[in-house]
C-alpha cells in the first residue's frame, strides 16, 4: 500500500454455498486512477462490488478504504457515508420524484431527524446540486420526473446522485450497457470529467472499446481470481487473458 491507495483488497474469499465466487483476491486501487474490471460472466466482478459496498460479507479477507478503514465489518449505509458511491447495473433512480429531488435526497443523507423534516437545503448544498446538474447535463430536466427520463439520462442521474456526496471511490457497474452510440460517447466524456486526484473510479464493463477509452489500468477477473492486470494493451497481449476471455 502507498500514500495514494484508495481501496485495498487483501486475500478476499467469498463463497456462496459450495460455489467460490471470489478466491484469494488481492487488488489495490489508487486515487486519481480509473480502473476497469473485466472478465466473463461469473468472474466475480459484481460480487466484488457487493463486498466493497457491504451488500455481501466476505468469508475471509479485508477491504480497506484509505488504508485504515476496514469496510468488511460495516453496514451499507455507513460504507456509503464513508465515501464510496455505487452505481448499479440497472438504472436505479427514484422514479416518482423529479430529477432535482433525486439529487436533494442524496444531499440529505446522514441528517438528523429534525433537519430531515424541517431544514431547507443550505446555499452550499443548492450550489452543489446545480453544479452536478450541469455535470450530468440534466439542467433542463430538473423538474421532470425521473420516470420520464431516457435510459441514458437515468444512468447519468444515478451518477449525479453519487456525485453530490463527493465520493472518494466511485464504483460504476456497466455504465454504458443499453446506451445508444451518442449516449455512450457522452458517458465517456462524463467519466473522464470525474477524474480527480482525490477520487478513484472503478468501472465494470463488457464493452472493450469503452474500457480502452476510459481506463488507465485493467484488472481481468476469471472464476473469482485475478488473471492479469495492466494497461489495456498489456492485457490484450497477455496469453492467459486471451485464452479465457478475449480469444473466444
Amino acid at each position, binding site marked *: 500500500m502507498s500514500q495514494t491507495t484508495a481501496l485495498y483488497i487483501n486475500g478476499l474469499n467469498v463463497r456462496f454455498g459450495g460455489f467460490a465466487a471470489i478466491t484469494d483476491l488481492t487488488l489495490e486501487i489508487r486515487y486519481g486512477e480509473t480502473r476497469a474490471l473485466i472478465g466473463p460472466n461469473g468472474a466475480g466482478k459484481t460480487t466484488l462490488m457487493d463486498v466493497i*459496498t457491504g*451488500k455481501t460479507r466476505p468469508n475471509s479477507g479485508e477491504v480497506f478504504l484509505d488504508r485504515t478503514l476496514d469496510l468488511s465489518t460495516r*453496514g*451499507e*449505509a*455507513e460504507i*456509503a*457515508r464513508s465515501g464510496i*458511491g*455505487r452505481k*448499479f447495473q440497472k438504472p*436505479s*433512480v*427514484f*422514479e*416518482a*420524484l*423529479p430529477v432535482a*429531488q433525486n439529487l*436533494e*435526497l*442524496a444531499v*440529505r*443523507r*446522514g*441528517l438528523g*431527524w429534525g*433537519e*430531515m*423534516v*424541517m*431544514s431547507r437545503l443550505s446555499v452550499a448544498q443548492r450550489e452543489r446540486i446545480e453544479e452536478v446538474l450541469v455535470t450530468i447535463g440534466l439542467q433542463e430536466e430538473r423538474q421532470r*420526473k425521473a*420516470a420520464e427520463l431516457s435510459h441514458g439520462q437515468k444512468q447519468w442521474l*444515478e451518477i449525479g*446522485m*453519487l456525485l453530490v*456526496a463527493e465520493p472518494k471511490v466511485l464504483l460504476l457497474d456497466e455504465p454504458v450497457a443499453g446506451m445508444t452510440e451518442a449516449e455512450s460517447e457522452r458517458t465517456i466524456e462524463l467519466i473522464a470529467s470525474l477524474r480527480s486526484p482525490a477520487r478513484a473510479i472503478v468501472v465494470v464493463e463488457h464493452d472493450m472499446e469503452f474500457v480502452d477509452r476510459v481506463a488507465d489500468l485493467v484488472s481481468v477477473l476469471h472464476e473469482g481470481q485475478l488473471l492479469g492486470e495492466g494497461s489495456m494493451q498489456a492485457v490484450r497481449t497477455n496469453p492467459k487473458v486471451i485464452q479465457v476471455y478475449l480469444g473466444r
Partner: protein
Amino acid sequence: MLNSVSSLRSPSCTTSHIGLPVLLVCAALVLPLFNAVFPPGHPLHLSLFVVNLVGQIMCFALLALALDFVWGLLGVLSLGHGIFFGIGGYVMGFHLLNAAYADTRVLPDFMQFMGWSTFPAALQPFAALPVAVLLGLLLAVFVGGVVGLAAFRSRINGVYFSIITQALTYALMLLLFNNDLGLGGNNGLTGFTLLAGFHLAHESTQVALASLSAVVLAGVFVLLRGLAVSGFGQAMVAVRDDEARLRFLGFRTDRIKLAAWCLSAAVAALAGMLYVPQVGIINPGIVSPTLSVEIAVWVAIGGRGTLTGAVLGAVVLSCLKFWLSAEIPSAWPFVLAGITLLITVALQHGLWGGLQKLRIWKAAS
C-alpha cells in the same frame, strides 16, 4: 402509483389538500351548532345515531390515514393496523372502566363473573385520562416498535411483512378472546358511563366527541401531509421506489421505516381511543383480521399515496356500508366486491386519482 405522488406536489391540487382539513373543521363546528340551534325533532337536528355515525367514520378515516402513510408513501402494506386501533381502544376502555367504577362503585359485570371483589390494580394506572391517552400511544408505539424493529432490521418486506402483521392481528384477537386474561373475553369491555366528567349517554357528549374526532382527523392530516412533502417524505417515497438505492446512498432505511411505522401506529391508536367512547364497547372483534383488511380496502379504493384518497375511501365506503347493511344487508359483500373489481380495473389510482384526472381533463377542455 407514480401519478399519485405527482399529485402530492403538483400545485394544481394544493387547494384541495388545504380544503379537506378546512372541511373537517367546518363539520366539527356545524355538528354542535345545528343541535344547539334546532330543537330536538326538527329535521335539521341530527339524531344521536347520525352524530355517532359521523364520529365513527372520522375514526375510520383516521385509521385509513395511518395506513396510507405507511402503505402509500413508504410502500409497507400492513394488514394488521387493527392491532394498534385495538390497543388504543382497549386502553381507552381501561380508562372508562375506571371512570365508571369511580362513578357507580359497581364492579363491571365480567369482573363479578370472574369472582373479583375489588377493581384490579393492573387497570388503575389508567384512571387519569391524560395518563391513559399517553399510555395508549406509548403502548402502540412500543408494540409497533418491536414488530418494526424485528421486521425492518431483518429486511422483511412486501407480502411477507403483510402476512406477519395479519398473523399478529389474529394472534392478538385469540389472546383477547381468552377470559382468563381478565379483559372481558369475547364480550369485551362495556358499561362505560363517564368521560372526563361528562355523561356518555348525553347527546351533547356524543356531539362533542364526533366534533373532536373531526378536529383530530384534520390535525393529523395536516401533520402527515407536512411530513409527506418534507425531506422525510422524499425519503419515504424513495424507500418505496428503491430501498436498496437509498441504502447505498448512505441512508439507514430501517430507521426511516421504523419512524414512519411507529408514527402510523400512534395515529391508529388515537383513532381507537376516539372510537370506543362513541360506540360504548370494545371487544376482540376490533382486532379481527377482517377489519385490518377492510382498512387496506378503504385506502386502495380511495387511492394510495395522497392521504386525501385514504380519507375519501374510508368515508365513502363506510357510508355505503352503514346504509346498505341497514337497507339490504345481504347486498353489501357483493357491492364491495364489485367496487373493488371496478377500481382495480378502471381506476388504478382510486377514487381520488379518478377525480384528479377528471379535473385535469376538464381544465384541458
